[in-house]
């Protein structure tokens, strides 16, 4: 082969080798551990912080046991405490962490209970205009024991 071609190819070979060396330094170690991705990210994603604690945490001993025992027997037991009271994991870990006060406006209860054409027929819905004058719903309905009017 002509000398100039040899030089060209040597140059090319050097570039390729340099590339391979850089690659072996830069690509993260855990890449390819379980598949074509960075294995370490699985654990990273598992370790993200939890914000919702779940209702059972609220009803623990020495916490909100009484209201929990009322709530868990009535219709709103399917409504998570944190749906109205906000994410509470921080509060569960440290009781001094305040929660935002629950939204007890007509509009908030209406998010579920105002009449909607697409809502299933048997779901309890009321016409906001005519039901309960303009009072807040909690005036008559205990949100933790809603059928007790």
């Amino acid at each position, binding site marked *: 082969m002509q000398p100039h071609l040899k030089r060209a190819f040597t140059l090319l070979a050097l570039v390729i080798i340099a590339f*391979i060396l850089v690659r072996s330094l830069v690509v993260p170690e855990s890449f390819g551990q379980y598949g074509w991705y960075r294995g370490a990210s699985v654990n990273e994603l598992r370790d993200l912080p939890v914000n919702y604690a779940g209702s059972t945490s609220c009803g623990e001993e020495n916490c909100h046991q009484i209201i929990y025992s009322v709530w868990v027997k009535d219709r709103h037991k*399917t409504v998570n405490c944190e*749906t109205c009271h906000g994410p509470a994991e921080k509060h569960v870990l440290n009781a001094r962490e305040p929660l935002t006060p629950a939204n007890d406006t007509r509009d908030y209860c209406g998010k579920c209970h105002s009449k*909607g054409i697409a809502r299933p027929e048997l779901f309890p819905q009321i016409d906001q205009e005519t039901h309960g004058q303009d009072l807040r719903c909690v005036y008559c309905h205990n949100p933790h024991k809603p059928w007790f009017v």
Partner: protein
Amino acid sequence: MDISRREFTKIGCKVIIGATAGTAIVESFIINSIGAENSNAQGGYDWENHFWGYVIDTTKCIGCGRCANACKLENKVPFDEEVYRTWIERYRVKKTSLETREEEVVIDSPNGGIDEFVDDIPAEEINKAFYVPKICNHCDNAPCVQVCPVGATFVTKDGVVLVDYEYCIGCRYCIQGCPYGARYFNIEKGTADKCTWCYHRITKGLLPACVQACPTGARKFGDLKDNNSEVKKIIDEERINLLKPDLGTKPKVFYIGLDREVK
């Protein structure tokens, strides 16, 4: 054997370069391409023991939007941007004239369902109306995973499709590839983002935030490897459907009561 110093240096250099290159090649390519059957057991959770599935019962959804709201709070998804990991659609099928026989369907999703659905069409004009919660389907044959050019999104052993935020280059090919509109671009991170089925919760025995928030049981989550789980029973015994099954993505969100109008 008589070699001159020059010859020796030439051969020596070639050997060193060849050996370095060879080792680098072996280490870089061959080791990385072995998708090892390594188990990943961390803190008592072994992903070999679980395979997650999701069921949505559209007959129960009341469109309250608490799921979409809880998801944003749990996963720090911005409220002021139009990006959603899960959302609710409302379908209102209007009465059709006998001539056209075409169903006119009005579909809406105000702020993903977090804001109220307004009844602005008179009830007399509507035949049927219902809500359909939507979420990432965590497809077994995910087109988003297929099209990622660098390997920043993947399916875990327990069936969850995740995004590696430290590796994604933000090309947005996966967003184009998802037929369900489940992915979005996270401006703060500069990467793609999507529902993770609250991977950080389910690997600790908790439920995803949306499932926990749902007050009517329209959303259900469970382990398909557990014969006693509710989702496994539903999938085995009830009549269920998938979104866009003809695309072959093998979604793992199973719908009860999926109407033909659902997009």
